[in-house]
């Protein structure tokens, strides 16, 4: 039986689990701490309902851009796994295929809609209630 693209990709370009966990932990640390800061800021500004979530999304995109250019050096594929089964396989042209889909992990990963969002809402509601 011929190996599936996923198995082939693992053989051709194996990943280091230590580095993977280190990178995702770095990203989620930044997201959760800055989520709390952003929540405090949203509470001070007195944002309400959708404006608060819009502020959260917008400023997190800014943080992602900083992360992308300062820490990852505009090469997300070097530091994140990306879509399974794309790395290493190259049917069209010669050379090493870096894979695809890692930008999604960088821009929307790291608990953007889970842990960091709960920290943001905590800071937002708490500071908003104390100040007013």
């Amino acid at each position, binding site marked *: 039986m011929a190996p599936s693209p996923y198995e082939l990709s693992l053989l051709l*370009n*194996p*990943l*280091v689990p*230590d*580095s*993977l966990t*280190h*990178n995702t932990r*770095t990203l989620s*640390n*930044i997201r959760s*701490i*800055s989520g709390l*800061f*952003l929540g*405090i*800021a949203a*509470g*001070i*500004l*007195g944002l309400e309902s959708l404006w608060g979530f819009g502020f959260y999304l917008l*400023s997190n995109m*800014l*943080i992602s851009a*900083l*992360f992308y250019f*300062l*820490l*990852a050096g505009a090469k997300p594929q*070097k*530091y*994140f*796994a990306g879509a399974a089964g794309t*790395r290493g396989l190259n049917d069209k042209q010669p050379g090493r295929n870096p894979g695809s889909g890692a930008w999604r992990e960088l821009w929307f990963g790291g608990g953007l809609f889970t842990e960091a969002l709960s920290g943001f809402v905590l800071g937002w509601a708490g*500071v908003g209630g*104390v*100040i*007013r």
Partner: protein
Amino acid sequence: MSVLSRILVFVGLLSLFHAAYSAHEFSILSTKYHKNAPLPLDIKLETLISVFLACFGLVLGSEPLRPVSWNEWAGKIEKEGGPHPFRGLEDRVGFMDIRAERREFANWAKAQGAATKS
């Protein structure tokens, strides 16, 4: 975390708390004298700038990422001179430099002989 990023985070947080205090004072005064005044522009600007500074310091001060591909990871370790993961393959008998080993042994034997004679 470098010194610059620490300073950035510290200044950002300090001015964030200052902005919070200002907003609190403003809301107390505005409810005493008139109703529902919007927050002044300077407090808004201070909040936004300070939170941006803190986040910038946070990103700047976090640990550098590690390459995730095995080949880049191993190459980086080897370049830095650490014990690289392919050491076991390069230490096999077929790759041994027999002349260097012999020379080393001859030097050692000569040193031993000189030591025992004197």
